[in-house]
């Protein structure tokens, strides 16, 4: 996988994904603080995303690498009208790897075509954010001890939420069962339901929380953004229907875990945080291991 960029989760085969998760586990158990000695990683954030940037930079630093880059396009040459191609071509000369986030969709794919070094997509608009998917899978594997036959409930904005779409695709080879809980206006798009039909994956749709969440192995919560509703009244009326409260978890499986890509607004009640089933903060920690695995793999330092 050396010099192979990671732009979309579908760039990696299922075997390659499994290997990344193994490497992430190796890093969690045995930190390798000198693996990236002498390496320079550029983090180019054409739109701000502090959490994602810090996670990547932590991953590089924990492996002994150095970081250059920018977190605000207003201070970079981008604001002077330079093309993305020129920026990437130049930065390629300064580093061994580019991690980039950009508001335009497809920007990372294009960057990977013009760069002389591998590119890791840290989010291109509403399109892809593959390291999020890998850390979600790592969290599932770590908490459930397996990836196969997992019962996953996805809740919230299933229409625009790219994380649920990518996770759904990446988990499909492992015989999952999906339950989708959302407002009718934010339902899982037909495109992805057709995908599941084609793969023979079972899924069920619900318009509200049901007591069968007691069957869940994973509840994957997402944020419902006000901007998604043209009718603000409708948003106000429905927003509380998709909030997870601690009392709803009484009959949940003891091994069940709640994931959330963060940031959350109010969709997980604060009283859930102290429940051992709440896993979203540990999930963020897993992001560092998953990103260490991706970085060292695309650099050819791990096979």
């Amino acid at each position, binding site marked *: 996988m050396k010099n192979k960029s990671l732009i*979309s989760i579908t760039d990696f085969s299922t075997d390659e994904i499994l290997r990344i998760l193994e490497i992430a586990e190796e890093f969690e158990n045995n930190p390798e603080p000198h693996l990236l000695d002498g390496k320079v990683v550029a983090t180019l954030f054409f739109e701000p995303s502090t959490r994602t940037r810090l996670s990547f930079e932590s991953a590089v630093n924990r492996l002994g690498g150095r970081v250059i880059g920018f977190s605000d396009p207003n201070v970079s040459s981008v604001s002077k009208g330079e*093309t*993305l*191609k020129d920026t990437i071509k130049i930065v390629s000369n300064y580093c061994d790897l580019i991690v980039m986030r*950009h*508001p*335009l*969709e*497809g*920007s990372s*794919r*294009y960057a990977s075509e013009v760069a002389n070094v591998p590119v890791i997509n840290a989010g*291109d*608009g*509403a*399109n*892809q954010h593959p390291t999020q998917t890998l850390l979600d899978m790592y969290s599932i594997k770590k908490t459930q001890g397996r990836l196969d036959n997992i019962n996953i409930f996805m809740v919230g904005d299933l229409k625009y939420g790219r994380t649920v779409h990518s996770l759904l695709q990446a988990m499909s080879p492992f015989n999952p069962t999906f339950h989708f809980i959302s407002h009718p206006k934010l339902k899982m798009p037909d495109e992805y339901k057709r995908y599941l039909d084609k793969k023979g994956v079972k899924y069920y749709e619900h318009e509200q929380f049901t007591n069968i969440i007691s069957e869940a192995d994973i509840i994957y919560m997402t944020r419902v953004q006000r901007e998604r509703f043209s009718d603000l009244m409708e948003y106000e009326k429905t927003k509380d229907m998709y909030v997870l409260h601690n009392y709803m978890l009484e009959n949940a499986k003891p091994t069940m875990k709640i994931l959330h890509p963060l940031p959350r607004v109010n969709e997980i009640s604060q009283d859930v945080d102290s429940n051992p089933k709440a896993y979203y903060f540990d999930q963020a920690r897993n992001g560092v291991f998953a990103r260490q695995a991706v970085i060292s793999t695309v650099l050819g330092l791990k096979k």
Partner: protein
Amino acid sequence: MDKSELKVTAIKDGTVIDHIPANDLFKVVRILNLENLDNQITVGVNLDSKKLGKKGIIKISDKFFEDNEINKIALLAPDANLNIIKNYEVVEKRSVQLPDMICGISRCMNPKCITNSEPMITKFEVVSKRPVALKCCYCEKITDAQHIVIE
């Protein structure tokens, strides 16, 4: 009148592209870059057609297209057919076939796609030939037949 029409219609050697939707005729001219050819070219538009209502036709003297050159027009004119003329006779009839990849002809319909803000060539995977559906290799969104915009 009839005589002069006949005169421009008949070509000795070359290619006749028939059954082009009338509305897309000049886009087809552009895709094939005919403006920059020195060959004799006759363009007929708004001719009656049983199949298309109004159709267009293009006749190009002394020009024989390669498959990859001509197949691009299937994007706009999937029913087009080619008559290869040699010495006033039709020696071969061919239909057009949309290729699996399309580069630099249509724009991506996604306004947030990088191809709409960088000076770069678009690239699509043809995910459906009829009706035409193009998947952008960059933003991964589908541009369907109604939204194809020729660059």
